[in-house]
């Protein structure tokens, strides 16, 4: 990423951290060839959409590719005996 893109990524990460529809600290963002690529996991579709909206607002000149996934809970695993 060039210098300008690196600062854009920093500003978008800050926005995602403090936006009350997201408050995510671990969204991965890269910018290359006119495209912003978002990845990571969030707990709900609403938060995924909010990340996408904020990225589009802050990066109006870039195509935003949203590869963020919404993670699903699976059934509890069998117990682990930690002191055996």
């Amino acid at each position, binding site marked *: 990423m060039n210098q300008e893109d690196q600062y854009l990524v920093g500003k978008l990460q800050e926005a995602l951290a403090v936006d009350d529809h997201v*408050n995510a600290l671990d969204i991965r963002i890269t910018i290359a060839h006119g495209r912003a690529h978002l990845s990571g996991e969030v707990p*709900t579709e609403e938060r995924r959409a909010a990340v996408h909206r904020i990225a589009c607002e802050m990066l109006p000149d870039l195509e935003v590719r949203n590869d963020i996934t919404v993670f699903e*809970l*699976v059934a509890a695993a069998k117990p682990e*005996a930690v*002191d055996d």
Partner: protein
Amino acid sequence: MIRIAAVGDIHVGEDTHGRFRPHWLELDAHADVLLLAGDLTNIGNAAQTEVLVAELRDLPVPVVAVLGNHDFHCANAQGVRQALESIGVTVLEGESVTLELAGCKLGIAGTKGFGGGFPGACGHKFGEPEMKAFMQVTEDEAHRLEENLRALRADYRVALLHYAPVKDTLAGERLEIYPFLGAYQLGEALDRAGADLALHGHAHHGTEKGVTPGGIPVRNVAMPLIKRPYAIYTLGKAVSEREGSFSAREAALS
């Protein structure tokens, strides 16, 4: 044997209504207690606290929690704590509790913990007042953890944290952010005081299993990592098989 269900980083919001409750309502079939390792809400405001309370109300097992950094974002951590306590959840902030479960005593020392990093790449109380204050918070958290663990009179002692006490369970996270994910002083407190198990969250991309330099098992139960409504850990054989257990000694003395 005590069965401990544990999870952290559930990040409840108004968009997660009822996500966990169906799983937690059946907890008594699988566990004796539920421990929550912080980041219970996404920002700790009143609306999210209401959702959290609805998830946790009248669960079939005792619930003990610490708060996480997200729960502090709206400067309403005391509101979150009071709401949880109003439904019988025990919240530990540099405190401890002892529960009588399955015929033995489970002592839990809980605190949020803080960052600072790990030997070779950690902060110090040096330079600007802000840096000294940052590291002082970590030292204070570790000190309280050690004191509380030492004071517990129980068959099993568990440390409940949000921040990581070792870097083993951070593997998978970016190295650059380790100092924001945990601190070695917490692990040192565990090793000095002793514990049977340490649980933490905060590191969504870390690793579930680790150990302190002194050999205490550490488990990262961040929900985005374990991808389950809780993990279950068992401690001990039946208490009658455990020589010198606190309950056995206490019974012998009475």
